């Protein structure tokens, strides 16, 4: 039995398999509409995340399966003090696969240690969010046709933004990928990522606080929100939240074939005037996220192997 806890749990080949399956599902969703009939997905959401939860539920429903679960810790037995280990042992007998979101880092790892069904990490605090990474990768692959030879700009909160960390970890495995890391000085990438991933892997990267200057070089611009919940101090949040706002005037420096991604939800870091620009693909990205979650559920349930799908 397999779980998906960290984006790096998947080898490049396994990733390729899931992304390709996701693309096939996108092109021919009817073919996959009954693959998970009789199967149940449990969504164990200890903190609210409407988007991720609904994306998982839509994915399972699209595959003909059913869903059950809870959407906040208050409505689960965690409010009575039940441990993650006990909860997952019980859920294992109710469902065939589960997606877990938890505010504490490592909670899905604990679940995987005690679970009898595949566990998908749907976000654990500021740590990992592998299905967002899969969503980002399938978006880049569908739109540019490749995952190598790319210059990727990442802008906003690069310190606490787990989607950024996961995407960097995933993309450094492909040849000739360059990163432009754009953030205020207080929100640069963590030291371990710089030392153990970028420097250790001899990866080409630039750290800057100038978005416009590097805009013409980018194939992908990955925007992120400065998240209130990652700050212990409200003053720091207010001071930094408006640091980098993408608007039409900044976008004029970008190439015509650049794509703007965002894990959503957006607050104000992308001005709404950008939404109608063909390069703005963040809503499409959310749609691709459902296809890649469908592919992942099939893969973890072993339903992509013997059916010739």
């Amino acid at each position, binding site marked *: 039995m397999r779980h998906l806890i960290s984006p790096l749990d998947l080898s490049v080949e396994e990733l390729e398999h899931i992304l390709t399956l996701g693309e096939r599902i996108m092109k021919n969703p009817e073919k996959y509409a009954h693959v998970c009939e009789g199967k149940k997905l449990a969504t164990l959401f200890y903190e609210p995340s409407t988007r991720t939860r609904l994306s998982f539920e839509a994915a399972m429903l699209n595959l003909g399966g059913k869903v059950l679960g809870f959407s906040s810790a208050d409505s689960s037995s965690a409010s009575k003090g039940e441990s993650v280990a006990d909860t997952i042992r019980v859920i294992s007998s109710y469902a065939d696969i589960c997606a877990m979101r938890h505010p*504490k880092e*490592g*909670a899905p790892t604990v679940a995987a240690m005690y679970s009898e069904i595949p566990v998908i990490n749907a976000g*654990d605090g500021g740590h990992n969010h592998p299905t967002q990474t899969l969503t980002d990768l399938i978006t880049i692959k569908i739109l540019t046709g490749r995952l190598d030879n790319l210059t990727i700009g990442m802008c906003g909160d690069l310190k606490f933004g787990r989607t950024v960390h996961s995407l960097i970890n995933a993309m450094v495995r492909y040849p000739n990928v360059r990163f432009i890391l754009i953030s205020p000085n207080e929100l640069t990438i963590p030291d371990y990522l710089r030392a*153990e991933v970028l420097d250790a892997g001899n990866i080409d990267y630039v750290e800057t606080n100038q978005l416009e200057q590097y805009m013409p070089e980018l194939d992908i611009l990955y925007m992120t929100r400065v998240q209130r919940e990652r700050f212990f101090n409200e003053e720091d949040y207010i001071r930094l939240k408006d640091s980098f706002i993408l608007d039409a005037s900044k976008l004029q420096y970008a190439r015509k074939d650049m794509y703007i991604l965002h894990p959503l939800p957006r607050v104000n870091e992308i001005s709404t005037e950008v939404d109608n620009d063909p390069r703005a693909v963040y809503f499409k990205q959310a749609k691709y996220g459902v296809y890649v979650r469908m592919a992942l559920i099939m893969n973890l349930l072993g339903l992509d192997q013997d059916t010739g799908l």
Partner: protein
Amino acid sequence: MLNIGGLNEGIVIDHIQAGGAMKIYEYLNLEKLDCSVAIIKNARSNKMGKKDIIKIEGPFDIDLNVLGVLDHKITINVIKDNQIVEKHTLSLPDTVTNIIKCKNPRCITSIEQELPHTFKLTDRADRIYRCIYCESKFKGN
């Protein structure tokens, strides 16, 4: 120099970084032993300038390699019949459980008290351990 009696049988944990002996004492739960234990702080050392030493009397049966996680310069001398019969430096174990605690307030171990605090060695050269849950880093002396 302060004079502490020699050991007939026991172990000497030597070359502890000065000031580190009490930490080692706590990690090894030496307060639970009823044999003689001597803690020598700030002893003179040619190699280190100052060092701490712990002497424990009697047979002692625990895996001392965990000490390598905390302080890699430590050496262990095993004494029998007033002689050093073994002298070894420590190797780093691949995983350690409940030796070091995860200090990340966002880690699941911060709210689920019964979970074992397990760390994996992720970089032997730099002696870096990471929490198996949240991947927070621990680096000893």
